[in-house]
């Protein structure tokens, strides 16, 4: 795991110097109509479920059970949403999820930037051991530790509280790697050396040199973290209950009702998905760049 980021990465995160080498083959081959046809077909398949969600959420269930199913949205979106909110604490769930995801995002970005900077640019005793520990456990899904976590939260009396979801997710190994990688590429050694020669303390160097340069990377990490926290499922389903849920827990409960009204379920799903979709449509370009940057670790 070294600095093997392709040029596309830096471009995506927005730190490329103006003159960069040509980017692979992309500049050579123009897409033919067959390529466009295949891509458009794929895009339709990828987007169709969202469209179905909107159509089903805006019509009564009986209409959705017809064959063929209706193809256009109907007028009942609001009443279906109201019914969904009556069945599950969706309003509370949205507020809860904003709190949980907000705190997790803030903490992940701050702590991972600090640690990422130390690993990217500083040499200290234990550097390699600590990094190996984080690296070795990054691939291990946190869901494997849920039994002790659950027991811990129950002992502390936190089971069912939002803090039980927040605490275990405050930092992620992924964030550490992401920020380390980002700072390794974006932060010139000369700048740090200059600060050192000028006698700046380490804290001052961090505040006035590292942070401004780290900001684009922090923004991308923040968006990815928020999305992941918003969508987190396994642990919240275990530790929270239906009286104080996050949105994913509420959706799970909505889907497991005894007489499922599919239109109401779809209305709830729409409400729970909309915030992420809006963020995505606004910042999709940056998120795509972040995913590419975070994933290509060589």
């Amino acid at each position, binding site marked *: 795991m070294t600095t093997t980021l*392709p*040029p*596309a990465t830096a471009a995506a995160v927005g730190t490329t110097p103006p003159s960069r080498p040509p980017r692979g*083959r*992309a500049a*050579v081959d123009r*897409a033919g109509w067959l390529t*466009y046809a295949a891509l458009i077909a794929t*895009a339709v398949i*990828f*987007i169709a*479920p969202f469209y*179905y969600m909107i159509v089903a959420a805006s019509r009564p269930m009986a209409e*959705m059970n017809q*064959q063929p*199913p209706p193809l256009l949205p109907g007028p009942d979106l609001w009443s279906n949403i109201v019914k969904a909110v009556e069945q599950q604490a969706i309003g509370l769930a949205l507020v809860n999820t904003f709190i949980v995801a907000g705190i997790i995002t803030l903490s992940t970005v701050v702590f991972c930037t*600090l*640690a990422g900077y*130390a690993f990217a640019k*500083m040499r*200290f005793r234990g550097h390699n051991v*600590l990094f190996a520990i*984080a690296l070795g*456990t990054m691939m*291990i*899904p946190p*869901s494997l*530790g*849920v*039994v*002790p*976590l*659950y*027991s811990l939260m129950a002992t502390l009396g936190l089971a069912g509280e939002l803090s039980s979801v927040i*605490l*275990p997710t*405050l*930092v992620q190994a992924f964030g550490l790697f992401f920020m380390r990688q980002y700072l390794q590429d974006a932060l010139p050694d000369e700048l740090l050396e*200059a600060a*050192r*020669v000028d006698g700046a303390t*380490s804290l001052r160097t*961090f505040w006035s040199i590292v942070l401004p340069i780290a900001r684009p990377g922090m923004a991308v990490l923040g968006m990815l973290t928020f999305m992941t926290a*918003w969508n987190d*499922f396994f642990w919240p389903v275990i530790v929270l209950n239906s009286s104080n849920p996050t949105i994913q827990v509420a*959706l799970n409960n909505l*889907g497991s009702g005894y007489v499922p009204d*599919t239109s109401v379920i*779809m209305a709830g799903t729409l409400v*729970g*998905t909309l915030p*992420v*979709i809006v963020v*995505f449509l606004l910042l999709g370009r940056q998120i*795509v760049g972040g*995913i*590419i940057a975070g*994933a*290509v670790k*060589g």
Partner: protein
Amino acid sequence: MTLSLERPAPGERSAPPGGGSPRRRTDWRSRLYRWEGRSAPYVYVAPFFLLFLAFGLFPLIYTAWISLHQYRLGSRMRWVGLDNFIWLFTNEKFYNALFKTFTIGILSTVPQLLLALGLAHLLNYKLRGRTFFRVAMIMPYATSVAAATLVFAQLFGRDAGAFNWLLGLVGIDAVDWRNGDWTAQIAISVIIIWRWTGYNALIYLAGMQSISKDLYEAATLDGATKWQQFRHVTLPGLRPTILFTVVVSTIGASQVFGEPLIFGGGKSDGGAVNQYQTLGLFMYQQGWTYNALGRAAAVAWVMFVLIVGLVLLNTWLTRRRQGRVKTS
């Protein structure tokens, strides 16, 4: 201001060569400065590692200890040695869950990565509306497991589902997706494929764009066809990226949980005859439906060993293949 190659500690540089009291004061300050510089990295990594140890590493390791106990929430742990594992390895349902995890893993991972490779190839052309296509590809990734599964559960409905309607158009009888063995597994795999193909395509795309253009030009000069270029330039160049996606999807496949849970209407048995009960779901059932947390911990530990084994196997296979290609 030039850069010194040996990088002396900053304090030493500022100390004057003479002696006397100004030097002692500088000494004290430079020592403080040096101490600040030396302790800084630890201060920076401390919050991360304290939280990481408390909520990441410790639970992982402590799982092994709990797996050696009989443990119900609200009562004390009772040492039972390897009983939980013996129970596990003589239990038909465990083997069923292991098998279903494996089949759903194959059914979801293989098509997903192949489709992603093709899609990345298309996205690598010079395109109009490039951002639109990329964002469209990644939208499913932004959708939660719960939302995606709730939608697909409707699309796979027996009586009014869109898939059966489409099958009806080409004259195929309605399929009872949820109650069939393979059909339920296919339905769950489709959800996974839908959510992850675009993500993997973007990763392949990044890998493709990092392959040098010269290689393609050289191949063209040698008269290589597009397909030959793909096979002999693109694929070898993508090998590390492919290994990464295979490892990540394998780990993901071993963890499948939300899809079968919600597909089964929130029940942890994974269908009437456990036809889509994965290991993750089995663990959840033991721990939180039956309150047998010791057994759940044993399942988690087995999954851990499984993941480590699969990652090593993947790495080994890819290395071997790489070696073979190089020698040929």
